[in-house]
């Protein structure tokens, strides 16, 4: 459930996997919070034709494992699924799917939010936007998985 894929994403599929995983080791989760990132039709006023996502697959999955380990250190009973899609994505398609399962809803929302914040900080995936009149590589954070300040910032956002 931690993967980079070229195929469309499904929250339902991840939900079934996560719910079964939690139930197999205890009383089951009561709350699942999910996140989908979706390709929008415009970016800063320019009409988007499509996007391409590129990943350093092996390293991206390692960051997902790190994020899951950080989550389990803070929320020991939580279960997390995290899948990033790569390749060409059309408008309306989902680029990332995250499902977080916990006993109670406050934790589920916090885990899900923490995971997306951390992905944006450290996961080696790049967004390439194609417009009618050109293309742009989006560049955000300089990935540093050991940056404790970034981790604290993500935790503060998640547990606000």
């Amino acid at each position: 459930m931690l993967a980079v894929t070229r195929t469309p994403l499904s929250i339902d599929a991840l939900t079934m996997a996560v719910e079964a995983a939690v139930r197999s080791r205890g009383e089951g989760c009561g709350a699942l919070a999910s996140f989908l990132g979706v390709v929008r039709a415009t970016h800063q006023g320019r009409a988007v034709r499509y996007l391409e996502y590129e990943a350093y697959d092996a390293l991206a999955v390692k960051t997902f494992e790190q994020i899951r380990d950080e989550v389990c250190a803070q929320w020991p009973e939580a279960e997390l699924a995290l899948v990033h899609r790569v390749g060409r994505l059309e408008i309306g398609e989902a680029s990332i799917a995250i499902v977080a399962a916990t006993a109670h809803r406050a934790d589920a929302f916090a885990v899900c939010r923490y995971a997306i914040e951390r992905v944006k900080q450290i996961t080696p995936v790049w967004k390439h936007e194609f417009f009618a009149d050109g293309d742009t590589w989006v560049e955000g954070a300089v990935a540093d998985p050991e940056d404790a300040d970034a981790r604290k910032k993500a935790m503060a956002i998640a547990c606000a």
Partner: protein
Amino acid sequence: MRVTIRLFARLRELAGRERWDMDVATGAIVADAWTGVTDAHPALAPFSRAISCAVNDQFSRMSQPLHEGDDVAFLPPVSGG
């Protein structure tokens, strides 16, 4: 000794290549490999303060010592999600 260089996203596009073998001095560190990359591709030099690096599919520091056959990746700022 010889290492494999890998570039991603805009670095890859600017360099016009994705993966190649490079000779580095015995005792070289990741920063030396990056210098080799920017010597060959000066368009990448502006990224020097904003790259991440990985050795053998693990994030590393620029100060990490290299070994024969290492796979050394340079990453521009990320934009997943």
